[in-house]
């Protein structure tokens, strides 16, 4: 019984947890808006003004594009990953472990599965909000091709679900909040660097390129790039399927590890 998957415990009531998090988010919305607003400007300043002068143009899918246009979609993908992953690790961990918010919720008709689903959907929502703000900023510079670029928004929800779920699994298994350094060092930072973000995957030696193509962020970056450049090729279907399947397979794992952790 203990730690068994109880997916049928999920009800639409998970929306109540989402609403609670929205309310708390709105309290300091200015701070929450500030980061995704400024972050792209910092990156664009560093890479657009600094690095671009060194690198100039990049070969991508047989086309020459400016370096800044190359990395802008990657910045969007990284934002999706960071916002959902950090929400469902640090923020969820604080609510679960320090604030005992989940314990209080479990004395109401909510199930543990409702709570976890609500948290992950909220993580994905944060990914959408941050991505939307960033999209507006980079659009001003003309780095995004519209209307295709708008597809980034539904993608940020899907990507947020997938990476938030990964974060929630770590929240379920790591003993203390300091241990999050481990998945960040082993999982998040390597992806940040090697997922076709700042240079094309093709620049890596064969074996490294194979590893890189298997990383989830690589697929998210590819999708963002396809949408932002307006190049909807058939192979984006594979990347969408990758992210979707990743979520579908890992979500039950998140439910199981959280049940093991909290129900005894």
């Amino acid at each position: 019984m203990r730690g068994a998957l109880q997916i049928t415990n999920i009800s639409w009531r998970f929306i109540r947890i989402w609403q609670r998090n929205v309310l708390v988010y709105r309290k300091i919305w200015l701070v929450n808006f500030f980061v995704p607003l400024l972050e792209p400007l910092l990156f664009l300043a560093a890479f657009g003004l600094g690095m671009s002068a060194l690198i100039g143009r990049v070969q991508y899918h047989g086309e020459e594009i400016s370096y800044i246009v190359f990395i802008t979609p990657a910045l969007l993908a990284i934002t999706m990953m960071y916002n959902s992953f950090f929400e469902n690790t640090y923020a969820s961990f604080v609510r679960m472990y320090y604030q005992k918010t989940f314990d209080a919720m479990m004395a109401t008709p909510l199930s543990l599965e409702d709570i976890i689903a609500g948290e992950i959907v909220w993580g994905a929502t944060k990914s959408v909000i941050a991505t939307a703000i960033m999209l507006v900023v980079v659009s001003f510079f003309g780095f995004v091709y519209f209307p295709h670029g708008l597809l980034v928004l539904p993608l940020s929800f899907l990507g947020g679900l997938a990476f938030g779920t990964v974060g929630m699994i770590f929240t379920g298994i790591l003993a203390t909040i300091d241990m999050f350094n481990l998945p960040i060092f082993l999982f998040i930072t390597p992806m940040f660097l090697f997922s076709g973000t700042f240079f094309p995957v093709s620049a890596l030696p064969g074996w490294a390129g194979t590893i890189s193509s298997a990383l989830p962020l690589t697929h998210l970056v590819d999708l963002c790039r396809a949408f932002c450049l307006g190049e909807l090729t058939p192979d984006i279907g594979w990347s969408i399927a990758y992210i979707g399947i990743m979520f579908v397979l890992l979500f039950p794992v998140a439910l199981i590890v959280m049940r093991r952790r909290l129900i005894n």
Partner: protein
Amino acid sequence: MADNARHIIQAKELRKNFGSFPAVDGISFHLTSGECLGLLGPNGAGKTSTIRMVYGFSPMTSGRLEVFGLDVKTRWRQIKSRIGVCQQENNLDPDLTVLQNLEIFARYFNIARKESRARALELLKFIALESRKDDKVTSLSGGMMRRLVLARALINNPELLILDEPTTGLDPQARHQVWERLELLQASGLSILLTTHYMDEASRLCERLIIMDHGKILVEGEPAELIRSYAGDHVVEIVNPGPDIKEFVDAHDFLHDSLNHRMIIYGREDDRLFDLIGEKFCRQTCIKRLATLEDVFLRLTGRELRE
């Protein structure tokens, strides 16, 4: 069937193991509509494990448990929507204000937004915290937080209120404030299940008590009846008792406990021999008092320290 309907809680051979350790070791009890039932016991007796199973927080290992005549294994969502729970820890939501703590909690029960606000304000009045409604919960005193936790447990107009050590860690003023509210709720006919290790709390609030230890029920009954059966009416405590009193007590077969430097003797009302103890042997410090629930508790669960 009619009898079962009056039973708010019905537990049969309820068991909870943590690994191979039996935290709750096959207990059976019931709670009748409108009554306040107290679970007493030292730390680690299994009180909290028991009530956690009742409010569906913790799955039972074996046995049968019904709340409102519904099986907790399958009908937990309905049951949880009809009970109010004050957990041991003050797990108020520190990200929210006092009022929002109640409103958002009401939303977890699917109470409509407008009604949530109305009930929240009404309950703030009940716990006398209206003036603090927009404050952060972290700015409240321990007693205020406890009252707010109590108000939060009442947000869904529960038919059963579960309180896990409602006044632990509070100063006397704050405890009495909480008790007053609980007595009002009791008078309105609310069924209450309470755990505590404060004997005054148990005897003041509860009509019926269960004393537990090591996961088992030791005794069950009304407070006055328990005191009479396990500690008599009066108690004489003698500090540094001499050999003569020991002999006297043994000769007359008095119910007593011999501690290191103290002897506690339990006696009945109108017992001439017992009265004689006071007259004959009280050369040194000697205290005669009424028997209390604490005597019962210590006699049944022992005097050694727990974890």
